[in-house]
């Protein structure tokens, strides 16, 4: 019987999973001098990633296993150029699994203060300050009004 109360806290990453994920994250979003941002393998960001895997733990483990399987057992043993080649193959052949790693990495990377500042975001939650959005020009609706009723009468 499957029940909703069977949910357990996610198991921590194994050492092999951790170094594999670190390698993949660095390839996915590398540091950039031009934009002044760290890579997703930055220690602070990566610590956030490993803390925040939550419901994706099981499928992430599967994805990292596939990455290593495609890398003759261990992606870290390959040259950087060869790593990139194998990861491109992984994305092509296992888009769903790649999508899980992308989600796990991106949702932590893009909440890092340094990254937020670089893309023009204030490093704060939306609440309680909120944001300003212009009302917009309601006179743009004049042609819609001029056209008149478009619904069918039916009681």
């Amino acid at each position, binding site marked *: *019987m*499957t*029940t*909703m*109360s069977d*949910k357990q806290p996610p198991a921590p990453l194994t050492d092999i999973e951790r170094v594999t994920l670190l390698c993949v994250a660095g390839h*996915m979003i*590398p540091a*950039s001098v*031009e934009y002044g*941002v760290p890579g997703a393998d930055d220690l602070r960001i990566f610590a956030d990633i490993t803390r*925040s895997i*939550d*419901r994706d733990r099981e499928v992430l483990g599967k994805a990292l296993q596939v990455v290593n399987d495609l890398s003759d057992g261990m992606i870290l043993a390959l040259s950087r150029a060869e790593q990139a080649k194998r990861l*491109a193959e992984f*994305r092509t052949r296992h888009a769903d699994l*790649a*999508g899980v790693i*992308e*989600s796990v990495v*991106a*949702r932590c*990377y*893009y*909440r890092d203060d340094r*990254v*937020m500042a670089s*893309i*023009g*975001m204030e*490093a*704060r*939650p*939306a*609440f*309680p*300050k*909120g*944001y*300003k*959005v*212009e*009302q*917009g*020009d*309601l006179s*743009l*609706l004049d*042609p*819609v*009004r001029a*056209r*008149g*009723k*478009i*619904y*069918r*009468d*039916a*009681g």
Partner: protein
Amino acid sequence: MNEPVDVLIIGAGASGAAVAWSLAETRMRIVCLEQGDWPKSNDFPSTGTDWEARALEDYAISPNRRALEADYPVNDDDSPIKIANYNGVGGGTVFYAAHFPRLHPSDFRVRSLDGVADDWPLDYGTLEPFYALNDRMMGVSGLAGDPAYPQKEAVMPPIAMGRTGEVLGTAMNRLGWHWWPSDAAIATEEYEGRAPCINLGQCGSGCAQGAKASTDVTYWPEAIRSRIEVRTKCRVSRIETNDADMATGVHYFDADGKEVFQPAEIVIMACNGIGTPRILLNSASGRFPDGLANSSGLVGKNLMLHPYAQIRGHFDERLDGYRGPPICVWSMEFYETDPARDFLRGYSYQFSRGIGPARTAINGFADGMVPWGEGHHAAFRRLFERSAGMVSVCEDLPEETNRVTLDPDLKDGNGIPAPRITYRLSDNTRKMLEHSVARGVEILEAAGAHDITTKAPVPYAGWHLLGTARMGRDPERSVVNEWGRSHDVKNLFIVDGSVFVTSGGVNPTSTIQAVALYVADQIKSRIYELFD
């Protein structure tokens, strides 16, 4: 056994709250059982910088992903559209976008006008005062004068359409097509103790500001002041009946997992188009071997989900980004049946603003527009805060093969059999989706967008759960009568989206609540002949 009550409501969401509030004036003893808890606004994702991650965890729209104690699993493997919901006081209104269109007058006359499906036993005119009452109770913002609808009152000024609305509206004008600022159940000024919208942008995972009209902050405080009791963490397993084929109350599991019987004179179901048939089917007995209220055989059948197509593009200028209520404008240009098209009925568009940075990257990866490696940062910046688009909400016609049954194996945390969904897109729906994608691309091109992406149907968008206990005058062709009472069990009422005869092509919450208020009004006005 608990003390008997006059009225027992199952479910504290959109319809349960409305019916409870309306019945409060009768001074009957009313209890509402809710399987979830009260939402806590200070926990909502918009209170942290990790909002995008939290919207994929405890605030995920899929009950199967959340898998919290309040949730029950839904086997939706046999459906291209996956189920979305929220279980707690407020129900789906806690997570909805508060996009608040009404059905159109023609939606109630589908058989008469277009020769398909069935007419409702109600019409727009009958529901109109209840729509208006609900607009005031929820606090609806909008702009009067939309030529796609009969005249209706605007309770508050419209939400900001922003630069996104201007750009897309200008494109619609170029094409000569209808558009209008959306009606939204979002306060744009101080309203009944609620603070106005400050454009948090996270309507879809709970409004920390309290500006969005979820029923935990609208109907329920009023109803509780009128001494209605909401009992949380109480999951109903089945409805009990007696030899006279009347409901005598319900069995439920309380917060400690103890099974309790709650006697009641009247039972009202407000559990949505999946939860309601689930309980009715789980209430099978010797007297009702095929499930309660199911002499028609239609309980669980005719499930309608509103297939969505998504069309998004990117612009050279910065738009509103992740700020503001995500949906700002609608279009009803393709809503009514047009004989020149190869499908019947139609769809609405919801025009939507941008998305957050993590979602921009995740979508960009998936759509091949953001690479891994050196080019990531430049590609990301070409997309972030520059996207806008739309979803089409396609009318889903009722088909008995689309249905909710009980899964033979899957159960919730209390051991209650879980629902299983069987659902297919019809040819009519596929043609409608294709049409909406093609027109959506035209709109975005007219607006100057590039890098346009499309998706149809959108898989994780099964919000609108309709039709599984339809209303009608014929007991052989419907589950409840024209005022929401079961044909078979005369003190059992249904007020949620299950009773929809057809789905229309718009978000249903406004109509669900109008119907709930209408049924409550019928109960009050027929109180002395209610069970005849």
